[in-house]
């Protein structure tokens, strides 16, 4: 009996500790991108024109750019594991008389320049001859901490946004326009957590920036930026809390079940006073 009780106490105590550890851990690392460091920097007012020159943006930081119709506009933002990014773009079309309809498209590429699928959102939209603006949006799949090398799953790292017109009347080429891009990320929590982590996030030039390479006078690419609070190390998710809570519940249920078999007092078949 005593052994049972000690065992139960031990289980309970460890479960409680586990749970507390879980919540304590939940507070300390903050891989959430909604920090204050990014908001202080001024929003970019330019866009790059290629993967190499892409302008770095941060989540929840609207970026603007003025460009010419036909330009390929590139931005790049860091997305961490467990986040689902949504990119929204708005193109204010040239006011000058246009000659025909145009089709606009928003593409998202990962750090390896692999095109990423949009789960929903209007990625391509046609603008009639007299429309004032076009709005596009693309929601990526949830970024996983790890995937097989053969898979095309989104992994933590840089994500390139490319905004361009894919079909237009040739006479409209080169007209001035204004573009706005806004990316947001939502944390999906442990439901999408997978095991394993990448050795390094998929950031272009991760190894070329190390000092053993020859000093390149040109600065490293803007795509090297990382989320506020750094990349998550991949060992925290709310699965710890779920599992700990489950352990606690199991322990309580075990005690309850044990108590059930004891009955409420002396067994009835033992005569009183025996």
């Amino acid at each position, binding site marked *: 009996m005593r052994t*049972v009780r000690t065992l139960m106490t031990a289980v309970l105590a460890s479960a409680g500790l586990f749970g507390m550890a879980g919540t304590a851990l939940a507070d300390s690392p903050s891989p959430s991108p909604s920090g204050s460091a990014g908001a202080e920097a001024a929003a970019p007012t*330019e866009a790059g*024109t290629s*993967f190499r*020159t892409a302008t770095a943006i941060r989540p929840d930081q609207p970026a603007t750019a*003025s460009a*010419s119709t*036909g*330009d*390929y506009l590139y931005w790049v933002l860091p997305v961490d594991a467990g986040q689902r990014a949504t990119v929204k773009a708005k193109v204010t079309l040239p006011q000058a008389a246009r000659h025909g309809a145009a089709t606009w498209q928003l593409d998202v590429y990962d*750090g390896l320049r*692999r*095109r990423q699928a949009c789960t929903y959102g209007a990625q391509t939209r046609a603008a009639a001859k007299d429309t004032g603006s076009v709005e596009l949006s693309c929601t990526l799949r949830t970024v996983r901490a790890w995937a097989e*090398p*053969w898979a095309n799953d989104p992994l933590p790292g840089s994500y390139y946004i490319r905004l361009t017109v*894919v*079909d237009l009347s*040739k006479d409209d*080429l*080169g007209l001035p326009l204004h573009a706005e891009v806004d990316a947001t990320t939502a944390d999906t929590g*442990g*439901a999408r*957590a*997978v*095991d*394993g*982590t*990448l*050795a*390094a996030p*998929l950031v*272009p*030039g*991760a*190894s*070329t920036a*190390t000092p053993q*390479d020859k*000093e*390149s*006078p*040109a*600065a490293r690419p803007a795509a090297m930026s990382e989320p506020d609070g*750094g990349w998550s*190390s*991949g060992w925290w998710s709310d699965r*710890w809390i*779920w*599992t700990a809570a*489950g352990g606690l*519940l*199991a322990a*309580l*249920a*075990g*005690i309850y*079940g*044990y108590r*059930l*078999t004891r009955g409420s007092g002396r067994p009835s078949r033992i005569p009183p006073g025996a």
Partner: protein
Amino acid sequence: MITRKRLAAGVCGLLAAMTVALLPTPALAAGEPDADSSPKVELTLDVSGSMRARDIDGQSRMAAAKQAFNEVLDAVPDDVRLGIRTLGANYRGEDRKVGCKDTRQLYPVGPLDRTEAKTAVATLTPTGWTPIGPALLGAADDLKGGDASRRIVLITDGEDTCAPLDPCQVARDIAAKGIHLTVDTLGLLPDAKTRNQLSCIAEATGGTYTSVEHTKQLRDRVHQLVDRAAHPVVTPEATEGAADCTGAPKLKPGLYSDREKFAEHRWYRVDVRPGQELRASVSVAADRAVNNDYGVLLRASTVHGREIVRGSEAGNGRTDVISSGLRYPKAPSEGADEDAPAAETVCLQVSNSFSARASVKTDPGLPVELTVDLVDGPSDASDAAFFGLGHGWWLLITLALSGLVAGLLWGWISRWRVTVWRTN
């Protein structure tokens, strides 16, 4: 044990991230006033007779250009070395041969003396022909030397009048020299022919094309382009892939550029040590009129030809590049020979399925940009889920039920044992 390993990995990752975050500052500080690496821009202005037309905000095209130049020259970033070249500024005659050689450097590429440059611009009067091709060649020559990024900003109001030298082909040939040169074109109230020619030049070099109707627009755009040149960009290293893996060039981590003809493939080699992860991505640019459907394939294979992993992408419609990438984590070596792990040679094959009409020139090939990265420590995943941890209400119910069953069993067994003990 696993947890400890992971924690260690996490700490290592954090350290690595911090080092990476700290690194760029000294690199930036060191590379600032280096004459060899500061970006070069040449403004190339058309001063042909047609620039006299008074149709930009009520003033002549020439006046608009001069006004824009003055304002741009005031705001040129300090580390940009800027030059000015004119075309059609001097020869008034009718002789095409002479008129088509009429391009000259108005202000040499170098540290900018604003007053001098402005005075030089003020002397210009619209005069002659529009030799765009020769002007581009001249400008490329002016920008020679150093390994910085180069940019030509071409401002013109009419198409090239000096056939058969096709300025678009000239631009492509210049870009193929691998000197990181971009040509941005601006058309002043362009007609359809001018627009086609200018957008072709821009496309051939990865530049942009703008059609200008107002002075302010001209100023803002030129200013933007000069500013853009000032942004530091990693310049790729030229390489030449081989037709098969054995003769392929060995690449270290870095950024490389190459040229690839239509439907051609090229091989490169990379050494990957055990425990390293190879990351490669490739972009093939469509720098000329190509057919509507196209694709790119990047394959990593062993020296014996067994495919390890591939990345591919296909697309259609208007595009600047089509790109794909792959990663190949090589497992850490097991056993005694840890101290000298043999590197595996991985063959990278880049192929494209672009095509074009027969009239399109295939030489030089399409620009290829290849990035190769090697990061330490392959990614690993040992469990099906996150450390084997669970998630959700079903997990809680299952655990609670199994706890209950365990408790009941325990209780019954101990009761039974007590009964057995009593009966004995």
